[in-house]
């Protein structure tokens, strides 16, 4: 968080820095406090007998179940499979989406062809095509990854097109003026200048990939975090279902945090990294 150096704040006014650390400590405490309160409330509610054990197993049992999954290696197997599907889908989206977006903003025919498809396809609930994809490609990884790509590619295309449109004309003019070829213009001026917004599109696509991966696994069964939850639910093992939610939540949290860390790393040269709001 505080990686971005703020020379005048840190060096000039040490008491101000102290105040900031104090506030940081306080907000950290508040964070732990409210999550702890939530956990205790869950445990007490489950033990009070208001709900049956099937409806709400105690948090302690859920933690034991997760621990068993971790020790037995099932957690890593399932998490690896889910992550593998989600990430392969995501990378295909990233490469293909940026390529289509670039083609659309450089080529009239590509724009004519893809523009209505994107504007109609983006708001559609494409998950409805899942049974069609199963019909075509079966229930294995290919169809899971395909439905992820169908779902998560639209935010990437849309963000790329808007980002390239938004690149300042002056930048392009001056690069041209200094003799940049159109290839250099693209790789050295347009893409870097557009990268923050493209990144935002990718940050939408990543959680979407994970959502769709979980749904696809739930529907098709087999291994993976979603499939494991479905199996638990079929055997009326509600502790397993809750453990699955916590496991998926952890994977999702790590993925989203990692993405915003990568963003900060990649865009370290960009103005946004020096905004006090992101510091």
């Amino acid at each position, binding site marked *: 968080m505080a990686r971005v150096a703020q020379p005048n704040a840190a060096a000039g006014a040490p008491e101000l820095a102290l105040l900031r650390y104090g506030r940081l400590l306080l907000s950290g405490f508040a964070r732990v406090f409210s999550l702890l309160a939530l956990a205790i409330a869950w445990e007490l509610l489950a033990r009070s007998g208001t709900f049956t054990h099937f409806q709400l197993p105690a948090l302690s049992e859920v933690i034991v179940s997760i621990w068993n999954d971790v020790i037995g290696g099932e957690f890593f197997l399932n998490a690896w499979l889910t992550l593998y599907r989600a990430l392969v889908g995501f990378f295909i989206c990233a490469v293909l989406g940026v390529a289509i977006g670039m083609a659309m903003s450089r080529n009239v025919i590509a724009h*004519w062809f893809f523009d209505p498809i994107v504007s109609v396809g983006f708001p559609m609930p494409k998950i409805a095509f899942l*049974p069609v994809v199963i019909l075509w490609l079966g229930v294995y990884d290919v169809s899971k990854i395909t439905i992820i790509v169908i779902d998560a590619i639209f935010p990437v295309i849309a963000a790329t097109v808007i980002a390239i449109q938004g690149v300042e004309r002056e930048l392009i003019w001056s690069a041209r003026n200094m003799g940049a070829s159109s290839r250099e213009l693209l790789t050295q001026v347009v893409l870097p200048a557009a990268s923050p917004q493209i990144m935002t599109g990718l940050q939408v696509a990543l959680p979407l990939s994970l*959502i769709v991966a979980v749904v696809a696994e739930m529907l098709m069964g087999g291994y993976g975090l979603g499939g494991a939850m479905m199996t638990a639910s079929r055997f009326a093992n509600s502790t397993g279902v809750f453990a699955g939610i916590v496991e998926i939540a952890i994977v*999702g949290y790590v993925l989203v945090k990692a993405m915003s860390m990568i963003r900060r790393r990649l865009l370290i040269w960009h103005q946004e990294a020096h905004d006090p709001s992101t510091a």
Partner: protein
Amino acid sequence: MSAALAARAPAQRTWAENALLTLVRYSPLLLLAIAWEATAQLELVSTTALPPLSAVIASWIELIRDGELVSNGAASLYRVFAGLGLAIVIGASLGIVMAWWKPVNILVAPIVEIFYPLPKSALIPVTVIWLGFGDASKILLIFLGCMLPVTIGAFNGARSSEQHLVWSARSMGASRLRVLWDVVVPSAMPELLNGTRTALALSFILLVSAELIAARQGFGYLIGFLGANGTYDAMYAVVLTVAFLGFAADRLYLVITRRVLLWRE
């Protein structure tokens, strides 16, 4: 010619010119439809995997006529409206209160931060455990899944309301509640509406996934049922109907949003 037409201001175009522009713009979709029909008619791929578009349309009409599509569709739309309505009301209030009252923010923000990246589809089996296969479990799922985007939109919007507007309203004697309603809520509106748009798209995704996995009624159930029966042309008809409804809902929402935000220049 179409480029010259498009360059002219919309007000100057006639009705027929507008229709022509729309046709040119959406012609790729038409081409795709023709390609679909041709591929199926020539049997380039198996017709079970890809029934011709004409057969799909015929079975769509059939589904409308025997009332299956209408009754299942009504069930689905009711779930979306109820879940999304709850999410908007509660989510927007929560977001604005978080921005307006610091202690709430300190307590609630960590919980929001933990639950926001949770893939909401993970909640499907739990809502079924709690509320069964009926409407209530889908409404709960859509509510839980759609609340956070609305909350975050409302929070960001309300927090960014310009401080000098708040100050001048206060100095002119407006009470805190009055400021909240007349200054903070309107300035939160654009981002709130943006978050709601995300929630709208998400609500359809969650609805269809939940109905595909565990339901006895609704679009998703109908898709699964027809697919299991092997009547693929009818299945395609329902899939396309859901996709179109999601698209139409988004367009309708945009039109309404533009109306609401007309006061903003």
